[in-house]
């Protein structure tokens, strides 16, 4: 292949590296109104009175909106395909506030100073309710977080809102309790994963204006332009055709911008005032007034027979979705979907549990999306089982993991299309020197090194739901324009999708212009989440290009007056077989657009897959622990990845390295914490520590390519799977080093020290 499989530099790389003004805040018009939000200081309360009269009188204040000024139709902010599996439990502003930071009033003024001055003059009185913070005490708590009558779901997600349950799920194949009884060895463990923050460098921001045709234009740092358009239409009760959403360059998302945190505020202000408006969340709001990863409690039971085959797997979970349920049911669902199929020698599997409301910032989409939490628990239990069976942890996995061509109880009628996971494990073992180092090496009286491992799977798009379209046009000058709705958030999707087009059309990257993520121009795309862009949008691009190629041949045949079968496509021209006659693409284009052809050629395609082919990673961690303090260094991390065909090796490597480091953050440093009144304590980089440069020692990334038959050029995905292995692999390494099993993330020196002392 000429273009796919090459480390092509990102087409926007130079511009964004050298600080060109291509991000949302750089593009706003000078006179846009500045929006600030007045937020609730209480975790659970009802606004009994709100007086904005003094604030409105301040010169330069354009409008102040309260719950009395907004439409009363509930909606969801979730970036999911319609009909969303999310409760419609939100209003733009609600009389009831459900977490510290929940929105109370929207203030729009000529500048920030005026908006903040006005904010201070708004008088609010609250009736305070008893908040629910502990998700283990939420079910049937006398405090009901969503008692309003008009919360509704598009379809049943198991909501029992009067019990504070946003979603309840139960999947079972076979009889788990019976199977466990038959097992010779059973392990059981309970794990807790913490809420994690996205901490993307560019905070949430959006601006709006009304264009020349009276339409509402939204420019937003978003991952989901099409969902935002639909969401705004529902929330503001205006036709979607009157709304345009544009995504410029954005500074990271990791799932955070899959929930539309801010667009609703600028939209309503611009609609009411007719003026452009912008909102920029500061870091504090980004940490505490948007979303975080769902904190989850998982009880895992694994049963194995005498030969070491895992015959029963039971996962019971409780997930904390906070004040609103955008991603409540789906994150929890993915947790089960990406754990149950991995070990497929099972006779019985079960995943069950509840997702509960609490009075904290909502849980949202964060890279990994439930699979991360599930992997920590499942792999921890598998490692525990290996020890009990006296089996090497890699052996138990090689014996029990699903292989290419096999099925699982969860997907009984679908064979796994591609996997090199077993090879990934072998390669990883070799790279970390597993046989020599397992389980530990004592360095001296005080320092000991241990190694651990974990494997994981994710998905590529949402089977049967994610659908993307692509168009590719042959321009009058013989170059191409590729129109896609996929949202590049720095991942390089604009680049790799162009690579795919260039490969099919046998042309250069420079000959294709990619236009993306503008709902007026782009064909529909769900947006970048669920690891769908390479696989789903990629396949749409491939098919659209093949469609165009077919039309090029058909029309060349017409122009050259030969049967189509006598022609071959050579990228820069179409040639008659066994002859010298040809027509260049440039000439063809000109003829079709301006000359006798009278048919500007466009290829298009819509693609959605019935399967979600899993990428896999085998992760290996080596830690060095100071036994006197519990402090440990992660001296080595190996990640061997199967993402199918690697479309762009440099960019894929970057995804793995970046994701591993986020996973290391979750394993060792990051923790979203609240005080006893529900105030978020970790609302800055000073208190919430993402890994810094000095924390990262050595990460080795390797790829073992499989070939996914349903994927573009054999590709699957890599965006999310990368974050799942560090927590369980590091926990395992710590256990092997000092015999301490930390089951509650993050793994801190103090936790190790205290457990060692016991």
């Amino acid at each position, binding site marked *: 292949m000429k273009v796919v499989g090459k480390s092509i530099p990102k087409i926007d790389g130079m511009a964004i590296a050298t*600080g060109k003004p291509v991000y949302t805040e750089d593009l706003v018009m000078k006179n846009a109104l500045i929006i600030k939000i007045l937020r609730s200081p209480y975790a659970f309360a009802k606004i009994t009175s709100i007086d904005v009269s003094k604030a409105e009188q301040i010169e330069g204040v354009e409008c102040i909106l309260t719950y009395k000024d907004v439409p009363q139709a509930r909606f969801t902010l979730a970036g999911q395909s319609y009909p969303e599996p999310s409760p419609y439990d939100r209003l733009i502003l609600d009389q009831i506030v459900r977490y510290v930071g929940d929105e109370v009033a929207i203030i729009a003024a000529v500048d920030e100073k005026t908006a903040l001055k006005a904010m201070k003059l708004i008088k609010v009185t609250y009736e305070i309710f008893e908040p629910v913070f502990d998700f283990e005490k939420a079910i049937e708590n006398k405090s009901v977080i969503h008692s309003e009558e008009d919360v509704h779901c598009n379809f049943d997600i198991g909501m029992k809102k009067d019990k504070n349950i946003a979603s309840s799920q139960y999947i079972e194949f076979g009889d788990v309790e019976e199977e466990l009884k038959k097992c010779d060895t059973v392990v059981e463990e309970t794990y807790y994963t913490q809420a994690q923050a996205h901490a993307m460098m560019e905070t949430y921001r959006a601006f709006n204006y009304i264009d020349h045709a009276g339409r509402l234009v939204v420019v937003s740092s978003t991952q989901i332009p099409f969902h935002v358009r639909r969401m705004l239409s529902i929330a503001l009760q205006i036709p979607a055709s009157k709304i345009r959403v544009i995504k410029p360059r954005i500074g990271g998302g990791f799932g955070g911008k899959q929930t539309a945190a801010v667009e609703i505020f600028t939209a309503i202000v611009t609609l009411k005032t007719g003026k452009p408006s912008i909102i920029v969340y500061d870091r504090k709001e980004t940490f505490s007034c948007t979303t975080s990863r769902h904190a989850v409690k998982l009880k895992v039971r694994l049963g194995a027979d005498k030969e070491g085959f895992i015959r029963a797997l039971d996962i019971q979970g409780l997930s904390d979705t906070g004040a609103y349920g955008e991603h409540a049911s789906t994150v929890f669902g993915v947790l089960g979907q990406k754990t149950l199929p991995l070990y497929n020698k099972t006779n019985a599997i079960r995943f069950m549990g509840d997702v509960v409301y609490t009075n904290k910032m909502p849980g949202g989409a964060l890279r990994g999306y439930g699979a991360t939490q599930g992997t920590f628990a499942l792999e921890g239990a598998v490692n525990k089982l290996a020890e009990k069976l006296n089996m090497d942890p890699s052996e138990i996995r090689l014996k029990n993991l699903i292989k290419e061509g096999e099925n699982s109880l969860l997907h009984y009628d679908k064979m796994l299309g591609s996997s090199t996971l077993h090879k990934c494990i072998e390669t990883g073992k070799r790279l970390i020197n597993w046989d020599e180092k397992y389980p530990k090496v004592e360095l001296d009286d005080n320092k000991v090194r241990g190694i651990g491992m974990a494997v994981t799977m994710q998905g590529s798009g949402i089977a049967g739901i994610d659908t993307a379209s692509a168009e590719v046009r042959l321009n009058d000058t013989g170059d191409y324009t590729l129109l896609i709705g996929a949202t590049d958030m720095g991942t390089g999707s604009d680049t790799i999708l162009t690579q795919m087009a260039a490969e099919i059309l046998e042309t250069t990257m420079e000959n294709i212009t990619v236009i993306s993520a503008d709902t007026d121009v782009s064909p529909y795309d769900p947006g970048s989440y669920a690891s769908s862009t390479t696989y789903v949008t990629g396949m749409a691009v491939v098919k659209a290009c093949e469609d165009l190629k077919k039309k090029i041949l058909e029309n060349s045949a017409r122009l050259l007056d030969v049967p189509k079968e006598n022609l071959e496509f050579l990228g820069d021209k179409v040639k008659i077989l066994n002859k010298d006659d040809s027509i260049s693409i440039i000439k063809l284009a000109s003829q079709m657009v301006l000359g006798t052809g009278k048919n500007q050629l466009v290829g298009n395609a819509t693609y959605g897959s019935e399967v979600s082919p899993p990428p896999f990673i085998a992760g290996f961690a080596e830690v060095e622990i100071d036994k006197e303090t519990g402090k440990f260094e992660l001296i080595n991390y190996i990640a061997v990845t199967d993402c199918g065909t690697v479309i762009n090796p440099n960019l894929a490597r970057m995804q793995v390295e970046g994701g591993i480091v986020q996973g290391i953050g979750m394993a060792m440093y990051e923790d979203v914490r609240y005080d006893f009144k529900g105030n978020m304590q970790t609302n800055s980089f000073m208190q919430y520590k993402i890994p810094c440069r000095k924390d990262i020692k050595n990460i080795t990334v390797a790829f073992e390519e499989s070939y996914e038959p349903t994927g573009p050029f054999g590709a699957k995905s890599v965006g999310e799977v990368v974050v799942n292995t560090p927590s369980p692999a590091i926990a395992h390494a710590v256990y092997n080093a000092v015999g301490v099993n930390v089951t509650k993330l993050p793994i801190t020196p103090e936790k190790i020290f205290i457990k060692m002392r016991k």
Partner: protein
Amino acid sequence: MQIVIIINNKKTLLDVELNEFLADTLRKHGMLSIRKACNTSCCGLCTVWVDGKPTLSCSLLSIKAVGKNITTIEGVQSEAENFAKILVAEGAEQCGFCSPGFIMTVLAMKNELKNPTEKDIIHYLTGNLCRCTGYMGQLRAVKKYLGVN
């Protein structure tokens, strides 16, 4: 208050509030490469040079910058591009939001440190946070740029 700051070697008259920080002043003046990403002086994205030294523009009052020579990436474009080419070829800019501040620190490091080791490089750059890349690709690019093994 009216003050004069030298921005990218040009004497510039600016109207600033007393409690205004240099990052805001620079952005208002069109230096849109300056990003405010943290509010707590932790992230390094707003790094500019003050008399050649890398400094957080979000934490320097504009009134304190009077008479100082402030350099932003807009003022060192060709050096920035030299390094950026290597960074981009490595695939090591993802969302790019941290890149300008990072590049300013790298260029300052090149001026300040002769023959840095990998440890020196990591130490110098540690005040520049990145959430996307995991730092490894950036380090590879910097080592290539400085000719360090």
